[in-house]
Every structure is written in structure tokens, then in C-alpha cells.
């Protein structure tokens, strides 16, 4: 009995004796070793170098990225593209409804860093030459290797799992123009193997002070052929608008069927409405795709959401042209009490629409 206990104790002592050896050995990986393991976890450096392009969908947007670090983000219901963002190493540009703006400051830094991350297929390969190693940090039982870099004024922390060397966490820290704290956090999981590379299928994003959102990606494609000028073009596809006093021609960008009727998203912006000189209360005639079936009379224009009468005051079959209920660049047509069992023939993405002031 005594011998058995001694053997047991000996075993435990031996275990305690050798345990730190392994722990210490893990800790003593050089930053270079850790980064190499990060690449191996994603399929290896060679595998990553074979990937010529990578694209995925998230919400209403599709992202395209190439190893050079260029990123193009397109939003809209295909073939409609309402917004395009191009991220390059020198600048970030956005075209939203044909309004082109250059993105600067914190947003630019974040977009460029994310583009580098996507271009490296969620490894640190694109950051290799600029990283500082800050050691191993414990998050509960999970140990993460902490690397840092700088994206203009933002400090960027990248955390790799000490177990599988995948990217677990990314944090941007800095201050905004007002001098207030800016911090945005990404937690990546789960990682899944896709065509020999391991990438996260979702991440939780939260800005300091907010609850955050789970971002899920889908429809992942590798090596899609992209036109040589793909990352040069910033064009959107929102149809065309003709505006004259009392008359607007345009196209449908999207539609959906809320319980109280039909909602048609047009490509008419505030500027177009101003050109058409429409005022709240104006009665309009709506024509969808130049067919008599698509003619709706009795449409009323409202310039602000506040002016729209309560729905109980709107009769069945009534319609309004008004700003989008949840904000947005363009105006929407809402048709109430429509028989939704039959979809109107004119209701197609990019189909022409027209209104005339009565």
C-alpha cells in the first residue's frame, strides 16, 4: 500500500517536474515561430500564396479581396449596386448612390487594416514586417499571443490562440476627432476549413459602449476571375433618373412586402425630388413599366416621415411617396392594402418607374 502511494506520489512529482518544461517551451516560441504557426494553421504559406482572390457575402454586401491588399465591397440586391467601397493602401473611396467621397481618419485606418487581414485570409501574413510582440496574455484559461501594430493614429492589437494559432481577437484603440475614446473589438470564431485554408465564419464586433453585432459570412469563393480593372472601378448600378418639374423617371432598386402592403425602393434622391419641385401633399400618378396595369393614381408625396398621416387615416389602396422609413439615401413608394397574392408585373429590380404630378 505504502509502495503504491509512493509510486503515485512519484508520478505526480514527475508530472509537476516536466509540466513547466512544456509550458515554458510553448512560451518560448519566438514571435517569428508564432507567426509561422499562424500561417500553418491557415494551410501554410505556400497554400496562401496560391490564393489569387477571395470573396464572401455578409448581410447585403459582397466583399472581394486580392493578396495585394485591395478590397472592394459592393452593396445592393443584384444586379443593383447602391454602394461601392474601394480600399487601397493609399486611399479609401466610397461611391454611395453616385456620390463619391474619400474616407479619412479612423474609418480609413480600420478599413485598410481589415483589408490587410482579409487579404491574408485572416492570418497575420500581411502584417509580418510591422508587428511587435507583447507576450502571452491570459483570457481565462485561454492564452493568446499578443501582437501590436499601428494603423495611423490607432493602436492595433492582434491576438493569436496559443493552442491553434488562429486569430482570436483584434482590437483597435485610439481617440476620435473629439478626443473621446475609440475602441472597437473583433472576436473571431469559429474557424472552418475552406479549400485547404482555415477562415472564421463569423465574428462578433463591438465598439466600446455598444452591445455589438455578430457578423456572419457566407457564399465564400476562392480564385474567382476578376476583370483587370475590377479594383479601379467605383461605379454603382442604380439605373438612371430624369427629373423635371412635376415629373420623375427612375428605376426600382428593391422591394419588400411588409404586413401592411408593398414597399418599393426607388432611385430618387432628395436632389431629384427637389428638381421635381414636389411638396408635401402633392398628388401623383405612378406608372410602373409603362403598362396600364402598373398605373396607380392617388399617390401622395410626403417630404418628411413626420408629415405622413397615421396609417388608420390612409385608406386601403392608398399610396405614398416618402423618405425610407428606416433612413436611407432614396425615397420609397408604399402601397397600402395591396392584394399581395399577385405580385405586380412591374415589380422587378431596375424596372423603370415614373411619377407625374396631377
Amino acid at each position, binding site marked *: 500500500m505504502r509502495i503504491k502511494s509512493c509510486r503515485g506520489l512519484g508520478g505526480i512529482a514527475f508530472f509537476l517536474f516536466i509540466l513547466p518544461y512544456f509550458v515554458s517551451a510553448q512560451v518560448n516560441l519566438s514571435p517569428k515561430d508564432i507567426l509561422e504557426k499562424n500561417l500553418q494553421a491557415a494551410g501554410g504559406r505556400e497554400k496562401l500564396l496560391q490564393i489569387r482572390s477571395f470573396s464572401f457575402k455578409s448581410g447585403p454586401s459582397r466583399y472581394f479581396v486580392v493578396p495585394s491588399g485591395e478590397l472592394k465591397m459592393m452593396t445592393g440586391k443584384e444586379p443593383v449596386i447602391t454602394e461601392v467601397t474601394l480600399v487601397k493602401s493609399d486611399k479609401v473611396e466610397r461611391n454611395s448612390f453616385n456620390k463619391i467621397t474619400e474616407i479619412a481618419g479612423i474609418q480609413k485606418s480600420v478599413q485598410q487594416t481589415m483589408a490587410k487581414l482579409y487579404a491574408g485570409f485572416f492570418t497575420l501574413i500581411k502584417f509580418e514586417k510591422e508587428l511587435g510582440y507583447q507576450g502571452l496574455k491570459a483570457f481565462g484559461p485561454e492564452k493568446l499571443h499578443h501582437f501590436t501594430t499601428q494603423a495611423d493614429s490607432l493602436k492595433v492589437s492582434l491576438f493569436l490562440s496559443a493552442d491553434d494559432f488562429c486569430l482570436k481577437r483584434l482590437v483597435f484603440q485610439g481617440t476620435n476627432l473629439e478626443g473621446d475614446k475609440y475602441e472597437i473589438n473583433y472576436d473571431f*470564431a469559429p474557424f472552418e476549413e475552406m479549400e485547404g485554408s482555415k477562415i472564421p465564419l463569423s465574428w462578433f464586433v463591438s465598439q466600446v459602449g455598444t452591445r455589438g453585432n455578430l457578423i456572419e459570412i457566407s457564399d465564400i469563393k476562392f480564385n474567382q476571375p476578376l476583370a483587370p480593372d475590377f479594383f479601379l472601378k467605383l461605379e454603382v448600378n442604380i439605373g438612371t433618373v430624369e427629373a423635371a418639374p412635376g415629373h420623375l423617371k427612375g428605376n426600382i432598386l428593391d422591394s419588400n412586402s411588409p404586413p401592411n402592403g408593398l414597399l418599393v425602393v426607388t432611385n430618387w434622391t432628395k436632389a431629384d425630388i427637389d428638381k421635381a419641385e414636389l411638396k408635401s401633399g402633392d398628388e401623383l400618378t405612378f406608372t410602373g413599366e409603362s403598362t396600364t396595369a402598373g398605373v396607380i393614381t392617388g399617390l401622395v408625396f410626403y417630404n418628411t416621415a413626420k408629415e405622413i398621416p397615421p*396609417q388608420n387615416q390612409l385608406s386601403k389602396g392608398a399610396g405614398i411617396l416618402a423618405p425610407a422609413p428606416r433612413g436611407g439615401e432614396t425615397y420609397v413608394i408604399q402601397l397600402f392594402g395591396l392584394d399581395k397574392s399577385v405580385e405586380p408585373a412591374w415589380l422587378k429590380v431596375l424596372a423603370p418607374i415614373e411619377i407625374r404630378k396631377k
Partner: protein
Amino acid sequence: MSFIKRRNFITALTSGLFGLGVSKKMNARLSSSPALEGQKEAAPLKIQKYKDLGKTGLKVPDVSFGAISLFEPNVLRYAYECGVTYFDTAESYLRMKGETYVGQGLKEVRDKLIITTKHGQNFRQKIEKAAFIQRVEASLKRLQTDHIDIAMIHNIDDLTPALNSEELMSAYDQLKKDGKIRFTGFSSHNAKVTLKQALDTDFAQVVLVMYNHMEGREIEPLVKAVRQKGIGTVAMKIFAGGMQGNLKSMVNRQTSYSQAAIRWVLSNPDFDTCIPTMSSYSHVEEYVAASGQPLDRAALGLLAGYRREVDNVYCRTSCRECLSACPNNVAVNDVLRYAMYFEHYGMEKEAIGYYQEMEAERKPLGCESCAAPCERACPHGLRVKSKLLHSHEILSA
């Protein structure tokens, strides 16, 4: 194993001789890279204050863990390492996966912390003791534990049907006797009624109620009374709708809106703890940092700014003034609460799930042609009807 070098081996041998404590120190030193030299390590993030949870004998941190929206079980463990020892989940959270995550994340430290879980009841249907015991046992399995510290009836507006259900009360008694449950209680969005009822029953040992800087002032005397009776008090929905993500200037140099909202709740000594939802490592860091912090001008400023922005948008779920005005018996507050989960909590799928489970006659299906007396009844000027129609639209997707 090419990275195991002779020097490492000698280091490890030395560490082994002096035990794990020495090894830890050494590892800490070794982990410092040249990049960190001269840089001071930040003080570890820790809960600053613990309180008695009523007369349960349990000590709880002032900031606890709400696990309604969780994607990474290790976040729970990180919170535990930061001193969070009270974790709130429910059978229905994360489409029945919530308890599983809590079990996965906390199994190794289970005996050092407090787990609350909640089970909903449909009092229109017959409740059977054996079936309920089975549900609790399934929770135990998912939580990977042999006992639940606090078992609550989930989301009740009225405690009477629960107390009148012999089968349910007998099941709770049995589970307590068997050591599977330590304490009982309930969660409620109708604290004006249920806290009064809690004063007259021993069933309520811990209560979980809505309380934030925009609603709950009227329940403060009741909270005080239940606290004096020895009932543990826990605050939920402390961010008042969580709409700060859509607003500007909700973070300043000193604090964030979330921290300010936590500090506001903690300033009421009658609450033992609160359960902000922690979904990420950054939430743990942000919310734990609010522990033990008093309300100050910067925090109050943020809260006032939030109130200005959302005053006639935020539905005070516990208000219920519109309910009696509705001719169609629509569960206005529940519908708008689910819409809040959808739009501001980042819980689209869960919100749709909750809405699907709602009885059809409580949904806003007849609102379109209604004259909306709910809007006249709303003391906060909400456009209730359009909010309901919009909620139905998003939740029916």
C-alpha cells in the same frame, strides 16, 4: 518539437524544482518581449465590490454576467478570472444553447461560482411535476453541474398562477430537497405587481427585474421592501434599450454609456447586482471596469444625452399603460421588446424565434385598421402603431 531547445529544457528543469509558482513568475518574465521593455503592466482588471445576495448567504459581485447573447464560451471564463462569480442564463437563451455554453465555459470552476437559470411556464396549459423536473434535469446536464444555485420562473407578469400550481411548487420543493436547486425566484418585466407578490411568499428568494435610468423609479420602494425581507435583488435591462450604438457621443474620455448605465444601477444600494449582457472579451473588460465606480458628472451627462435621444422612441416595457387601451389585446410591450432584441441587441434569430412562439392573438395583426388608442395611452409619446407594424414586419421575416 524543434522549438524545444537546451536552454528551455534547463529553464523548465529549474522551474520544476521550485514548483509551478516559480514557473509562472519565470514565464511572465520570459513572455516580456523587447517591445514591452520599459512598459508597465496594467493592473489586472477585477471586480471591486461584492454584496450579499439577500439572505441566501451567497456573495455576488456588483457587476454580474448576463448570458443571453454569447458566442464564445471562454468569455465566461475570462469574466470569472476578472472576479465575476454570478452568471445568469435561461433554458430558452440562444435557441436552447445558452445553458450549454455556460456549462462549457464554466465547468472547471463550477464550485466557485453562482449559476442562475430560468424556465418559462405556460400557465394556460397543465403543468406536470414530473415533466418540469425533467426539464430542470436537462438544464443540469447542459450546464454540466449537479445543482442550480438559483432556479427562476422565467418572465412572469403575475406570480399567482405559479404559486397556485401545486405541481410546479411541489416540483421546486422536490428539486430543493434533492439538492438540485438551492434557491428559487422569478424574473419579471412587471415588477410593480410581482414584487408586491414576492413579499408574501417564501418562494421568491431572489428576484430579477427591469431597472435602468429610464424606467424603474416607481418600483424602488418595492425593491427596498423585498431587499429588507431578505430577498436577493438583481437588475436586468440596465441599458434602457441598448440603442447607444445608433447614437453619437455615447463615449467620452472618462466613461462609456454602458459603464454609466451600470454605475447608475449600482448607485441604488437596494440592488445586489446587475446582469449586463457580456458577449465578448471587450464587454467583460468594459463592464467589469465599472465595478465599484460611483456615478459622476461625466456618467450622468452621457445618460442625460441618451434619454434626450430616445425618450419618445424607447418603449418602457414595464410601463404597460397601453395594454389596457388596446381593443385587440396585443402584447404591445412584448412585441416591442422582441423588436428591441432584433434591432439593438444583435439577436435577430432569437427575436424571431420568440415572436414565432407568441400566441397569434397577441400579435399586432389587426393594427392596420385600428384607430391606435395605444398612442393616446402612451405617456411617452411613442408612435406605438407604426412601431408595432414595423416590429411585426421585421420579426415575421
